[in-house]
């Protein structure tokens, strides 16, 4: 028997693009100093009240528009009640699907290996993050910097067929959040967290009919894209095994969690033990009318999104699809690329440098493009130096590496290393004569019609110059000199 999987995602992403928190005017910023960004409401001091941040709502509505969702006429918030030490109020302010979150019933097109796919969005809503707990030997400590940070939660329908689709979607969403300055989308800082749900069914049944679906297993707190991939693959395998050993029908609807170390999902609770969050409308936040003019204004503010940039790179800059996709995946990379082009760098050159050497360097050292010393100006300078023949492309590679490693400008490196390309004809001719003298056999071969020996000779001259001679000029002069012999 063959099976197919139905996979849905809940993606939580912290909004980092606002100055203040969702319902508090404390600074919205990641900080390593505990309890540095705290207003009274963030620690639920008695009598404090939430006040909704307009910018957070604006960003949420922007995401809602991008996801082709329907926006509500009025915005309400609701309380989700439960006890946990990281939740100072004893409830989280969020939005349930009733009366209406910032977005409902949308879709997003994304690509998997250049193939377009569509996922349906059930809803996207704005809520607040909890405090963070640090665990010590026998105690835990609570830091409220994160308490109240705006979070966007989007919920998809179970439209993904495999882990690759789910991860491609998440990557697309992360780029969108970055491009719109909704979030940095840094999962290392815990800015993106996912819940995944997986069920399997017989391959020949119709997945558009809900009655054919298998038992839905929810996996909580999957906090990196690679974990999403691993958790989905693990869970599909686990469920297929259950089908095959006949235990599938005993499996109840349940919540599991992903154990990153053991690389497996672990049972948490059954559906029947699900917590009743006792949702009700937050009475301290009166309804807010979402005016059409405001939505129009927000729509105008949506910047060029990754897919649009990708199209542009392919069509206008003649960059291949794979490289274009690589560049647009992260906004900072794409911005870097566009800056180079603005500085009149040859697009293909810039693309080559970025997709191969630059990204390689970032990955190898696990750093961000904004943390490196090399600016788009510097990369453009290197490209220009090669183009004008100031330095050789071999030298350029060395300059590139040294700029990154020694935090010096290309100009400094070139000067220090004496990387100035030599175009002094007299000097070149001198060395050519010497090389020709040393290679009389090769000269003879050339005279006997073996003209392809020319490349070898040019190479010898360049080598003797320690790579400093301009290769084009060297070849031209060599041609002239060899005829004279």
């Amino acid at each position, binding site marked *: 028997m063959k099976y197919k999987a139905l996979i849905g995602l809940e993606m939580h992403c912290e909004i980092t693009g606002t100055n203040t928190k969702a319902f508090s005017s404390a600074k919205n910023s990641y900080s390593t100093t505990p309890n540095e960004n705290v207003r009274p409401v963030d620690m639920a001091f008695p009598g404090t009240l939430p006040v909704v941040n307009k910018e957070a709502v604006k960003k949420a509505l922007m995401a809602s528009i991008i996801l082709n969702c329907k926006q509500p006429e009025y915005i309400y918030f609701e309380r989700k009640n439960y006890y946990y030490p990281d939740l100072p109020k004893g409830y989280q302010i969020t939005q349930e699907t009733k009366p209406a979150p910032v977005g409902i019933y949308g879709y997003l097109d994304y690509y998997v290996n250049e193939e377009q796919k569509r996922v349906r969005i059930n809803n996207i809503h704005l809520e607040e993050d909890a405090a963070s707990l640090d665990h010590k*030997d026998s105690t835990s400590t609570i830091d409220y910097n994160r308490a109240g940070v705006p979070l966007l939660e989007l919920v998809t329908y179970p439209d993904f067929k495999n882990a690759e689709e789910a991860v491609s979607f998440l990557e697309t969403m992360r780029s969108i959040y970055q491009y719109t300055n909704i979030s940095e989308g840094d999962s290392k800082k815990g800015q993106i967290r996912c819940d995944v749900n997986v069920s399997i069914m017989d391959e020949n049944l119709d997945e558009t009919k809900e009655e054919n679906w298998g038992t839905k297993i929810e996996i909580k707190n999957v906090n990196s894209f690679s974990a999403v991939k691993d958790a989905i693959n693990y869970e599909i395998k686990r469920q297929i095994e259950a089908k095959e050993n006949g235990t599938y029908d005993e499996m109840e609807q349940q919540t599991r969690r992903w154990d990153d170390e053991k690389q497996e999902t672990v049972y948490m609770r059954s559906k029947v033990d699900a917590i009743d969050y006792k949702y009700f409308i937050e009475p301290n936040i009166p309804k807010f009318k979402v005016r059409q003019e405001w939505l129009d204004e927000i729509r105008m503010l949506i910047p060029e999104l990754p897919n649009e940039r990708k199209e542009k790179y392919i069509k206008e800059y003649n960059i291949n699809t794979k490289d274009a996709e690589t560049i647009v995946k992260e906004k900072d990379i794409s911005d870097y690329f566009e800056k180079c082009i603005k500085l009149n760098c040859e697009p293909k050159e810039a693309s080559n440098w970025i997709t191969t050497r630059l990204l390689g360097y970032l990955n190898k050292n696990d750093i961000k493009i904004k943390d490196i010393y090399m600016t788009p100006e510097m990369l453009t300078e290197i490209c220009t130096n090669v183009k004008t023949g100031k330095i050789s492309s071999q030298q350029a590679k060395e300059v590139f590496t040294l700029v990154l490693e020694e935090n010096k400008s290309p100009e400094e490196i070139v000067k220090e290393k004496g990387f100035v390309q030599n175009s002094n004809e007299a000097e070149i001719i001198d060395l050519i004569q010497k090389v020709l003298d040393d290679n009389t056999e090769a000269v003879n071969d050339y005279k006997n019609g073996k003209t392809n020996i020319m490349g070898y000779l040019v190479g010898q001259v360049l080598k003797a110059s320690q790579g400093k001679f301009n290769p084009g000029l060297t070849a031209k002069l060599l041609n002239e000199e060899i005829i004279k012999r």
Partner: protein
Amino acid sequence: MSTFTKEMVEEYADKLLIGLTEEESDMVLSEFDTIDKNIDIINTIPNIEQVEPMSFCLDDFEVDLREDEIEESIKIEELLQNCDEVSDREIEVTKVVG
């Protein structure tokens, strides 16, 4: 006829992280009976289910949202002055597991 039982009272109290004495849970039940009877009366109001539930005092009240301007963070001494268990700049609790 109440749908509320003593076991349920205890379960709810437990979920709210409060303990009730025998006497207290009995009292909840009798109070609840009163409410239940009144709700039965409410249910006899014609077309009650079509009335829009009222969540706010001023039902027609619409607000403006807050501008995104930072206000100064509260001093750490003030944040922690009422807390009985503090570790450096943080609040400390018995280790939270799971």
